[in-house]
């Protein structure tokens, strides 16, 4: 069965969640185009979730997003509908496409509807036991030639395979958040994965216009393999600095240095807030359970989760409070570890005073947002890093040791054969984390 045939009936488990809704949108878009091209076939996208209300919101979301897709692709759609004389205006063609897209979607609260699916995508909570029980149920429901794609970001595929007896019919398909926008897709096979499934996985990724990086089947893979370790390093730095500063100030300084001086889109603690501190903890635990000889727990994370300071996002995509407090997705306050309340970053020019602690930035420094689209960014960054190394400030030292650690983590992923090459690690960080320079090349 080729990919086009498999696309006729697809299910997404956990469809109404943050990742599931994005994956649903990507699939809905491709399947809707196929449906228009093949009007005699009946495409079905089962959107399965336990939450009825969230499923309703998902349909509204898909309708709105499909309208935007149609508006952008109306030149292509006019060609696809060229033979249909009832559809003349752009508006009519766009409406027809959106209606087709919504018509293939079947929301459901029961897994049974996945029975006829040739491909099933799972995007539920990052918990191995729950994922395994879902796949066991799917195994009994679906035909023997159906394939399963798990959006796990850390659980080894071989382990899921063993627990579910899926015997090579499951691959890791790790989308980055938000899946509809983020170009990176980590694909993870096990030693049992048949060539057919590997090829289908790659072909689908191409159809979804994703940048694929293949990771070895090691807990955390490349993305979290790097991020979690770097996060733990940042937390250790906070503890080290808290001997001189307060914990709160240390979090602020490390975050600021990792954003500004490492020229990244956000600082490490803002990124943890974005991912969710509880999600970070879950992945730590999974990695800890599979990778011996390395400590994956951290007091600060345990403390934050115990205090229910979790970060993550609300249903509308806005940022929840974590290490930082957010107003309209901008950092407005910082978590005070002593009072367990948020300190305003602007009150009494709090952040301005703390910024001085990092010292002056090198003359050639530019913010990430200014360099991101700069055609000469490589040149400018090379000059900057040379200057950074010659700068004798607290900020420069902090940034350089962090950079060194980040690079070591990356090179170890290659040495441990989790990543096939330095380039693969760089690609994950460049695409999935929006870095603007390859960490292995610094």
């Amino acid at each position, binding site marked *: 069965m080729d990919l086009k045939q498999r696309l006729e009936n697809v299910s997404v488990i956990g469809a109404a969640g943050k990742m599931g809704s994005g994956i649903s949108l990507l699939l809905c878009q491709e399947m809707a185009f196929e449906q228009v091209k093949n009007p005699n076939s009946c495409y079905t996208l089962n959107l399965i979730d336990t939450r009825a209300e969230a499923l309703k919101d998902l349909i509204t979301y898909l309708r709105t997003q499909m309208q935007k897709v149609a*508006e952008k692709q*109306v*030149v292509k759609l*006019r060609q696809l509908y060229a033979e249909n*004389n009832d559809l*003349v*205006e*752009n*508006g009519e063609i*766009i409406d027809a496409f959106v209606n087709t897209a919504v018509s293939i979607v079947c929301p459901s609260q029961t897994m049974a509807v996945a029975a006829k699916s040739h491909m099933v995508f799972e995007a539920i909570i990052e918990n191995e036991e729950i994922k395994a029980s879902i796949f066991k149920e799917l195994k009994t429901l679906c035909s023997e030639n159906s394939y399963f794609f798990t959006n796990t970001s850390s659980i080894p595929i071989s382990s899921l395979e063993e627990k579910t007896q899926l015997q090579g019919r499951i691959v890791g398909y790790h989308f980055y958040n938000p899946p509809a926008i983020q170009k990176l897709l980590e694909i993870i096979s096990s030693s049992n994965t048949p060539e057919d499934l590997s090829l289908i996985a790659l072909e689908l990724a191409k159809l979804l216009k994703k940048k694929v990086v293949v990771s070895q089947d090691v807990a955390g893979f490349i993305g979290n393999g790097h991020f979690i370790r770097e996060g733990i390093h940042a937390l250790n730095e906070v503890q080290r600095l808290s001997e001189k500063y307060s914990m709160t100030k240390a979090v602020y300084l490390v975050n600021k240095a990792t954003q500004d001086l490492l020229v990244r889109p956000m600082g490490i603690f803002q990124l943890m807030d974005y991912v969710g501190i509880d999600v970070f903890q879950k992945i730590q635990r999974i990695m800890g359970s599979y990778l011996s000889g390395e400590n994956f727990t951290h007091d600060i994370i345990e403390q934050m989760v115990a205090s229910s300071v979790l970060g993550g996002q609300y249903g509308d995509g806005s940022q929840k409070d974590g290490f930082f407090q957010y107003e309209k997705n901008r950092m407005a306050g910082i978590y005070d570890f002593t009072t367990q309340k948020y300190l305003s970053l602007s009150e009494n020019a709090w952040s301005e005073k703390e910024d001085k602690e990092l010292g002056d930035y090198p003359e050639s420094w530019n913010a990430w947002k200014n360099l991101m689209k700069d055609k000469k960014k490589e040149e400018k960054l090379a000059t900057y890093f040379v200057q950074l190394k010659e700068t004798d400030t607290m900020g420069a030292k902090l940034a350089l040791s962090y950079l060194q650690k980040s690079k070591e983590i990356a090179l170890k992923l290659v040495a441990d054969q989790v990543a096939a090459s330095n380039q693969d690690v760089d690609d994950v960080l460049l695409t999935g984390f929006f870095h603007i320079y390859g960490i292995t090349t610094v």
Partner: protein
Amino acid sequence: MCSFRKPVYLTAGYNTISLGTGRPEFHPKKPRPSLEDYIKEAGQGVIQQISSAEHIDEGVISNFMAARFNRQGHLAALIPSIDPALRYKPCTRVEGACASGGLGLANAIKTILSDLADVVLVVGVEVQNSVKAIYGADYLAGAGHYASERKNGHAYFFPGKFADRAGAYYEKFGAESTREAMAHWYAKAIENARTCPQAQEYHNSAGDLLKLGRKAPNANGFVDHLNLFDCSKVSDGASAMICASEEGLKKLGLDKDKAVRVFGMGQAEDDLTQAPEDQTKLSTTNQAVSKAYKQAQVSHEKIGVLEVHDCFSITGILALEAAGFAEHGQAGELVKSGYTKRTGEVPTNTTGGLVGFGHYTGGTGIRQAVDICRQLTKQAGDSQVEVSSQRPYGLTISMGGNDRTVVSLVLGKDT
């Protein structure tokens, strides 16, 4: 063709801002002035320049597609909203696609000539940012022939039509040299718009305009032979002015020095259901302009300031040929030579034209006449150019659809 039986004047013009992308006050998700607001602003802008609205005998409103852009028909009855003195005055709405403005003036001129009125207020308006451009393209496509053209037309219907013309012109006269001329057209449009605070591109501060204009067209995202800089803007706005007899000017207390006289008016239509015979020529424009020249007893050699309908840069170039300023295939060289720049022999589209000023479709033809009037009466502010005494007349070309309705006016000082 004989000249008018009595003098007809145009004066007291008013142009609102042309609002749309490029204007700092424009944000697609924020509230904007409505159709009614623009009609009032432009109408009242005229009334402030005259002795009393009581003297206005009739109103004409030009608009193309409010019925779809704003779901509003019956626009003639919006004229009384401008001023209480206009209640119960006869008002008419005219529509001729993008030539609606020119057509409004033509109707006002005919009313003056009929002796039924001495003063006519002409307002032209369009509010197009009410929908995304992709839907606006559907509405604007109504200027073509829906039954025979829309289904097979491009998603962006008119860019598609004029891309076809550009393609034909490239084939006949060379793509590279034509594209270069189109880039020069764009640069001139922006340079001129920067002199006019109401222009949509007034704030455009791009450095290398020619480089932008030279950008290669992208058929996947847009159309095959035009880039976005070749196109006029999606605009909201209105223009208004007074059309009056000599008696009317007196009643309004207006000086002839501040008015222009209509020396020639040419109007022409061609069959909407038929495709142009020659894609490289604007034959209807040529007909209308020739009539206007003939009535005014002038040739292009007497035209010192020009307003052409450059809905696309290629259209501006074709219009120069249709109006006699260049032989067929030669207008590109003329543009590149600087002939149409503000310092050139015949300054053209001195506030930016449709590409630079903006194109609120129903109002554009009136905006053109307002700008020519200001140039000839030296009221053009920073946009003022030197009009050679050897070339004392101004010419407007208001074109609708794919060269299907055209109104052209020869305007001059009444000496």
